[in-house]
């Protein structure tokens, strides 16, 4: 996260490759499923042997004795509808929900987050020197209506995407944050409204961030978990 601060996001998970290195983010949507983005994986049929999801810790590389750390193998990848760029990842065993690990709500189908709603992104990715890369960073930003966002992107933002507008320039998701959450608060509940996807630049001043709009794919997410 560029321009973020160390923070807490108990539904944000770190996806780890076979060497144990963090390579992308994800969000815990149930005790057995993580949602992320397809761009983090080579294909919808990738062999996940050796890949894990780590959660319950704020550190990018926690020590072995970290009491809250849970590291669970990934067993299955399911790709979303073609234009969604989403993947669902199944965990080998259910995660233990506690004060450090929590699942995030899904929005109602087709729900549109009102412009101005304050949401936050979280991740262990690149900070471009703006923060401590050893810990989870978060950044807050208000939702921007698609119509306004399209003024920046010349109409390229689609209905299945949504935007946020950083308060100040130079705040946004960056390398290795992809797949992580855009979480928005609704009363006292946090809702997964967006999934971070790669953009041409990260933390670029004066440029909104684009996310995949989760509410468009809630039916698919539930179907994957059910079937």
């Amino acid at each position: 996260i560029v321009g973020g601060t160390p923070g807490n996001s108990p539904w944000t998970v770190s996806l780890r490759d076979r060497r144990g290195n963090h390579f992308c983010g994800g969000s815990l949507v149930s005790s057995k499923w993580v949602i992320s983005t397809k761009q983090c994986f080579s294909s919808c049929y990738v062999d996940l042997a050796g890949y894990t999801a780590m959660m319950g810790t704020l550190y990018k590389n926690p020590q072995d004795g970290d009491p809250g750390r849970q590291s669970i193998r990934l067993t299955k990848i399911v790709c979303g509808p073609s234009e969604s760029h989403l993947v669902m990842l199944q965990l080998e065993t259910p995660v233990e929900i506690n004060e450090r690990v929590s699942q995030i709500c899904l929005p109602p189908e087709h729900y549109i987050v009102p412009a101005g709603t304050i949401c936050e992104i979280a991740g262990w990715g690149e900070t471009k020197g703006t923060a401590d890369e050893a810990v989870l960073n978060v950044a807050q930003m208000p939702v921007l209506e698609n119509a306004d966002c399209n003024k920046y992107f010349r109409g390229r933002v689609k209905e299945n995407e949504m935007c946020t507008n950083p308060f100040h320039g130079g705040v946004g998701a960056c390398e290795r944050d992809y797949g992580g959450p855009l979480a928005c608060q609704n009363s006292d509940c946090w809702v997964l409204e967006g999934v971070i996807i790669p953009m041409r630049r990260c933390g670029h001043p004066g440029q909104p961030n684009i996310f995949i709009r989760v509410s468009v794919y809630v039916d698919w997410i539930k179907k994957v978990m059910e079937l």
Partner: protein
Amino acid sequence: HRSHLNDFQRSEGRELVPNEWHKDRMQLLPGLTLEECAKRCSQNLECRAFNYETRPSVTCKQLPWVRDENTADVKRNVNCDLYEKKDYVRRCIVGDGKTYRGKVSQTQSGLTCQQWWSKFPHDHRWTPSAENGLELNYCRNPDGDAIGPWCYTTEPERRFETCNIPRCEDEVCITCNGEDYRGQVDHTETGLECQRWDQQYPHQHIYQPEKYPDKSLDDNYCRNPDASPVPWCYTTDPKVERQNCKIRKCEKVPLKNSRSSYTTHCFRGRGEDYRGKINETTSGVPCQRWDAQSPHQHPFVPQTYECKGLEENYCRNPDGSEAPWCFTSLSEMRTALCLQIKRCPDDIEAEDCYHENGKNYHGMVRKTRKGIICQKWNVNTPHKTKINPTTYPGANLTENYCRNPDADLHGPWCYTTDPKTEFDYCAIKQCAGEFVSIITPIKKVEFNECGKREERMSHSRLR
């Protein structure tokens, strides 16, 4: 720190089955650990292999023979692993080949070897024994001759000749950086013995064979699972963690960027065959040239990795990462992926189209967007169907045609015949010119089951 298992070649889930003649010569040792079983076999000249069974009970079956087309079959058995002494199954020799116990019985010029027990046509003073391994007429090197394993020939004119069995380091050559090396060298360039990949001592490591099924991390043979410049292994010396192996390089193949699988405008799989000219990261940072060592020092020198297309500063994937990547020109950002390069479109053409969400689609497309054939709606293999003609009688769920019984907004789908993929969307597109808005505003939303977090904890920790 050396394991006795290092003397053996493992075949997972296999059992060596004796024929009738062999049966009486098998020795059963119940309850031994794997290491102990290997030790007993190593120290016993009669033992050439062992079956290590884990079910119904742990049993070490020591066998005085190895696999052989004529006398001993290997069959599948998930409860058993087969270990054969390398000296008996290797196709190559180590050092001067004194320990070679293979079954080659012809000399380099094609002459048949004389039986070691025979003194005709050539008289000699060798006496076959378990120690010297002078069995039948197999090539051996009982005197440690520099010519390697040899034999007396059946040709009266030619007393003896070398069998020219290749040395392990020459038997299989490597191309590029040897990632596909599957040969049998098990010592490093300085002569240290390699540690088995399936063991965690003396060195702990991440390369467990079951995690890397495509890397063939067999026994303690040199391999290159991490795209290093050459094959390597962890060593059995506790002071030396890992070391390169010395293996012959193949003659250069002049073909450059001409393989039909190379792509230039998009990438397939992990993009190892991408040879396009994109030279900046997803976030627009220019890439560092591969032949430069600044701002980032790295091992991916184009001359070492000549098959990886490391030209200029183009995005490439020389190490099996998830997608093409590069070292960036920013000193504070070492590497980054080039995810702006598009994946190649599937070569599956839509044969049909559907209206709206396809709920009324009654066409005959029966494959998914990845080309996998659909499972029939009325069968339960490979996937048990919750949605089937019984639960959705009006949905026209016939044969294995793509349908949309649950009004999925993303179009017709089906259960798939791939056991790993329960369901997927079909290779059909929405009919041209149709646009249905997929979002509608909802005013009041309530949540109560998830998405909570303990704010106080994080605040106090931040302070």
